[in-house]
């Protein structure tokens, strides 16, 4: 059979050369003079090799049905999508998310919660307005729902399906898919709100350089000074703005398939980017949740009540305390209810 095949290929190759005068135009690409010439016959193998040198490598023709997607006869990229989905996507997710959990675990075991060393002053100062708290929790709650339902799409088949069975897993996944699609809207609104509300306090400046140089005080017991937000918080802010923004854009592309992005390659890319960015964001937010809850004493109330203890603020954000306590200082905005330092 093999020898037979080879002989046939030789015959065919000769034929292709003989038919060389005929020109062939593959509708995906017009042959450019610099590129390899379009093959001289509609032979599957020849076309395939030619297409590998052209753009997307898809073989597109004409169909008599109105669905434009049906005109793509073969898109070999589907196989690459399959391999990416099966390999790199899952590895990126596993390494990023499990890695962060392990890191947080080690940090907690070695260092434990970061305490307010001077003890609580018992006096609260306002750190966030109501709208700030609302924007944060709008984003946070929708993000957690999106993360769980999104991870279900990637890992549920391996982790949850064997436990609860195919029917139950389908019911859950169907509901999860709907939740994922609808939670995208509050999430997008939350990211937009936070972008606007927290922008002015999240511009990187010289203070952040010092903060980063000292490792944010996470190693040892130093407390590098910070204004309203320290360098790490600014990273979380910008990652949320850009990462969350990218998740929103790719998410809407996926929610309206072939309507915003019309090519299959574009849809595949949107899905892969959506997944990878989401995995990295989930890892980052696990770290953020840790530091905002059990990782740091007195931090959670900031986003819960909007108020923080004065000593906590002095230890973690001394420059910010100075700014709000001394309204004569340049660039300081006096929050409602805050009094000048002299009023103490």
């Amino acid at each position, binding site marked *: 059979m093999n020898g037979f095949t080879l002989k046939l290929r030789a015959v*065919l190759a000769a034929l292709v050369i003989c038919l060389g005068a005929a020109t062939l135009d593959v509708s995906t690409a017009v042959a450019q003079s610099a590129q390899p010439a379009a093959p001289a016959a509609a032979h599957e193998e020849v076309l395939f090799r030619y297409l590998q040198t052209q753009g997307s490598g898809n073989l597109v023709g004409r169909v008599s049905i109105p669905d434009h997607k049906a005109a793509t*006869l073969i898109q070999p990229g589907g*196989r690459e*999508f399959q391999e990416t989905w099966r390999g790199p996507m899952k590895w990126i997710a596993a390494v990023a998310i499990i890695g962060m959990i392990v890191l947080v675990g080690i940090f907690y075991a070695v260092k434990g919660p970061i305490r307010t060393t001077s003890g609580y002053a018992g006096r609260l100062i306002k750190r966030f307005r109501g709208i700030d708290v609302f924007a944060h929790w709008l984003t946070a709650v929708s993000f957690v729902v999106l993360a769980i339902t999104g991870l279900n799409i990637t890992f*549920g088949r391996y982790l949850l399906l064997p436990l609860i069975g195919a029917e139950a*897993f*389908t019911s859950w*996944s169907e509901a999860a898919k709907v939740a994922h699609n609808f939670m995208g809207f509050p999430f997008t609104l939350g990211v937009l709100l936070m972008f606007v509300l927290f922008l002015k306090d999240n511009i990187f400046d010289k203070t952040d350089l010092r903060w980063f140089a000292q490792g944010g005080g996470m190693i040892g017991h130093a407390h590098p000074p910070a204004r309203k937000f320290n360098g790490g918080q600014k990273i979380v802010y910008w990652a949320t703005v850009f990462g969350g923004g990218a998740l929103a854009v790719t998410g809407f592309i996926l929610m309206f398939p072939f309507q915003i992005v019309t090519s299959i390659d574009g849809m595949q890319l949107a899905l892969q980017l959506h997944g990878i960015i989401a995995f990295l964001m989930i890892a980052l937010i696990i770290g953020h949740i840790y530091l905002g809850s059990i990782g740091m004493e007195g931090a959670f109330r900031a986003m819960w009540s909007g108020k923080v203890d004065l000593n906590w603020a002095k230890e973690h954000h001394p420059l910010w305390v100075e700014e709000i306590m001394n309204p004569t200082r340049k660039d300081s905005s006096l929050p409602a209810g805050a009094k000048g330092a002299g009023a103490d």
Partner: protein
Amino acid sequence: MARMKFLCDADRCIECNACVTACKNEHEVPWGINRRRVVTINDGKPGERSISMACMHCTDAPCAAVCPVDCFYTTADGVVLHSKDLCIGCGYCFYACPFGAPQYPRLGNFGSRGKMDKCTYCAGGPEADNTPAEYAKYGANRLAEGKLPLCAEMCSTKALLAGDGDIIAQIYAERVSTRGYGSGAWGWRTAYKDMVAG
């Protein structure tokens, strides 16, 4: 056991679309869904060829690999089928499919594509063979009756071949050697990671 495959001899296909019509009629496929279609390459130019394409029932099927709910399965005959009871209509199989086979009853706004539908190789679905429930969801189960897919069976020029992969590859190889030319087994490289004579 046979390893069922499709092979379209593009040098014989006359783009009559009878396979498309036969498929729609046999399985009562709803409007807007095309389990099989004919694509014309180089339309109106020298070297024009038409190829009838449907689900190729791939080896190591990409759709099955990316399905979040694992609703695909491969039969002993190598036919790739899926369960509409388990499908959540996420659309991932369409992104992975090299042949554009998965079809959805709705457009897909807010993820409401409905249950995926595709060529079953006339082999029905997970329900008991030739039951009304199976017919309603997946169409006829000709394989259970000892028949091959209707599209290939009624192809007037016998361009579309269905059956055991080795046998249809041999038939095609014989044709190519007899007539002296052939344009290859379209999609075989991608679907079966395998080439056929010609």
